[in-house]
């Protein structure tokens, strides 16, 4: 790992295996999303989907800094966060296919997956919902050494939840990391057109420490995330991150992304987080080109198996869930 002597001494040595595993997870997310797109076009996935392709480094880099007691709250663009946190990819794909073996038995679908066993409070279909959930988790986690992470997009910074919850979290010094994934567009609208003053100053006004990140570089994300999470874990209060990233696809299945200026997507694709991570493995960490390619082959084979298994799973029968619990 590069960096000055103090940082190197404080952090455990980063080895090729760590980044090979992060690279594998990012490939898994990209390949998963490609298959989701294909299955949607074949009529196997219903409604809508919001793909994470292009933003993988943020979810994977942050998740690699979290421990088993930490919690994350995601958005309706949540497949990447779930897979980064360890959600079973077969269960996730089955959920999107509406099958009984889905993570939530087919009740949730793409936008609303809940996986507490892997620290995922939920994927929130309402813009701003993830911020509120993580803020509340911060109330529970205060003093325990665990942290909550809220993921949300640039568009969320215009929502009341954003302002109320950042203020609330700071007033009570909650252990929450607010991670804004600025992918340049709120649905179809460029963020510059609707975000006067930019994003970071909005958090700074509540006196949250702020960090701006290259969200296409998994090492940059992981390095910063580890430092931020450790400060928050130690009781330093909430912090704010703006990760600049880009989605390589439209907002949702119905959006071809034609509002993008010519050449913008191509320029961002040159910084594809998979290319950046592959170069890191080969050029700096000494992994052979063959070995890097082999990671991709293994992920493809895994996804083949997962897709076949998920498609073979049955649809759920009648839901027998009681409407109300019995209380204590």
């Amino acid at each position, binding site marked *: 790992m590069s960096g000055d002597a103090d940082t190197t001494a404080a952090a455990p040595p980063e080895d090729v295996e760590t980044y090979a595993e992060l690279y594998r997870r990012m490939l898994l997310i990209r390949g998963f999303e490609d298959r989701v797109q294909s299955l949607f076009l074949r009529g196997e996935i219903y409604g809508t989907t919001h793909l994470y392709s292009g933003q993988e480094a943020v979810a994977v880099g942050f998740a690699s800094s979290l421990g088993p007691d930490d*919690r994350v*709250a995601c958005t309706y663009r949540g497949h990447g966060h779930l897979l980064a946190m360890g959600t079973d990819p077969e269960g996730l794909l089955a959920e999107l296919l509406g099958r009984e073996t889905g993570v*939530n*038995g087919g*009740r*949730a679908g793409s936008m*609303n997956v*809940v996986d*507490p066993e892997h620290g995922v*409070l*939920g994927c*929130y*279909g*309402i813009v*701003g*919902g993830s*911020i*509120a*959930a*993580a*803020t*509340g*988790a*911060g*109330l*529970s*986690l*205060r003093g325990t050494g665990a942290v*909550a992470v809220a993921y949300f997009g640039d568009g969320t910074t215009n929502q*009341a*939840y954003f302002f*109320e*919850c950042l*203020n*609330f979290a700071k*007033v*009570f010094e909650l252990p929450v990391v607010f991670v804004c994934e600025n992918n340049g567009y709120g649905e179809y609208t460029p963020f510059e057109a609707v975000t006067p003053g930019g994003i970071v100053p909005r958090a700074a006004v509540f006196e949250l420490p702020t960090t701006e990140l290259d969200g296409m570089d998994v090492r940059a994300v992981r390095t910063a995330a580890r430092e931020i999470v450790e400060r928050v874990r130690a009781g330093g209060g909430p912090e704010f991150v703006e990760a600049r990233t880009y989605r390589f696809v439209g907002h949702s299945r119905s959006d071809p992304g034609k509002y993008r200026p010519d050449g913008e997507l191509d320029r961002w694709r040159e910084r594809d987080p998979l290319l950046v991570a592959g170069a890191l493995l080969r050029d700096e960490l000494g992994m052979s080109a063959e070995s890097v390619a082999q990671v991709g082959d293994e992920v493809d084979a895994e996804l083949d198996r997962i897709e076949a298994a998920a498609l073979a799973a049955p649809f759920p029968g009648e839901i027998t*869930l*009681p*409407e*109300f*619990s*019995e*209380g*204590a």
Partner: protein
Amino acid sequence: MSETGLIDIGMPRLSDSMEEATILTWLKRPGDAVTRGEPLVEVETDKATMVYEAETAGVLEEIVVEDGSTADLGAVIARIRVSGAAAAPPAPPAPAPTVEPAATKAPGVEVEFRDAIRQALDEELARDERVFLFGEDVAAAGGVFAVTPGLHEKHGPDRVFDTPISELAMTGAAYGAAITGRRPVLEIMFGDFLALSMDTLINQASKYWFLTGGKQGVPLVIRSVVGGGGRFGAIHSQMPVSWLMGITGLKIVAPATPADAKGLLKAAIRDENPVVFLEHKRLYSLKGEVGGDEVVPIGRARIAREGSRITLVTAMKSVHDCLEAADLLAADGIDAEVVDLRTLRPLDLETVLASVQKTNRVAVVEEGPLTGGWAGEMLALIAEHGLGDLDDAWRIATPDTPIPYSPPLEDAHLPGPERIAAEVRRRVSPASDG
């Protein structure tokens, strides 16, 4: 009035429901000059601590009720010596209308409805360390309706705390805490402000149990002050039940007595899923006996008065209005049964149907707009399951208008005892043989 003389200062009427109040601190001492509008004394009423300002100029001659002492509404608390003819005597305060407990009083200690709620909170905070209480002015101030005094001091700032005025953040955070191992009790000061909580309630809290296949509940209680009669106008008097009725996965608790307020709040806090707990502002001063650690189950109605000729199905403050109406009707030979639903979602159809089987007539009395209210849902259920038992069935609710402020307008708006009795007399004859 003498040209130069003493004017009695009566205990001012600082809240609509107060009968007495306590002098906290005199801000002037005898001999001090007092100008009109100048802060004179801090007074603690049943709802809040308020500063009473002098209504007349002069010199404070005498303090009759000292710091820490309590006096009835209108009782002389001080005298001011005025000079010249300019000073006007303060108008004597009018007696405050009060809600009388209609239920049978058992011997024993009686407490106010608000204190029953405080007891439940206190006991549940002590019983389960996962429980915590937060909201606007619930901690240091003890609640704007004086429901939560002392809890902050007793249970500490991590368990009982004040928040910014941020209902989205408060409700969202309560939900987030509930799915991560805590049992939050959130106060939304007025039910009208629940509109700001609705996203979390509708889109997150009431869905989680379903989405997780029953693996993870959301043990969240929202307490909120509701209802008319307080002269608070159109946006601090509403009954939010009709907004909430269609939220699958949500429970709505609506007690009418101190005992039920205590027992049902305990049940709500121990429930594994979200409960909205409605506190009618006109019930806070109602006195009644309360239980100890008794839990009143959610979803069960009670017969507040037995009768044979008609069933009045209702909740909250309207229970007492219906009991009063039943007394009026009894004088006319109409024997009314009153069902106190206690929970509005889910509705206790079994108890209601058993009553209707006996009386063959039902009026559902709802404080809330007629259109889209819970009374319509109740009547639909009765018709679906008990049509053969029915000779008559209708709703008595508030008109489809916002709640007016002016006392005569608001009183006419609410379904009080006289209107309930009049509607029943119009449709139900005294004859009772068949």
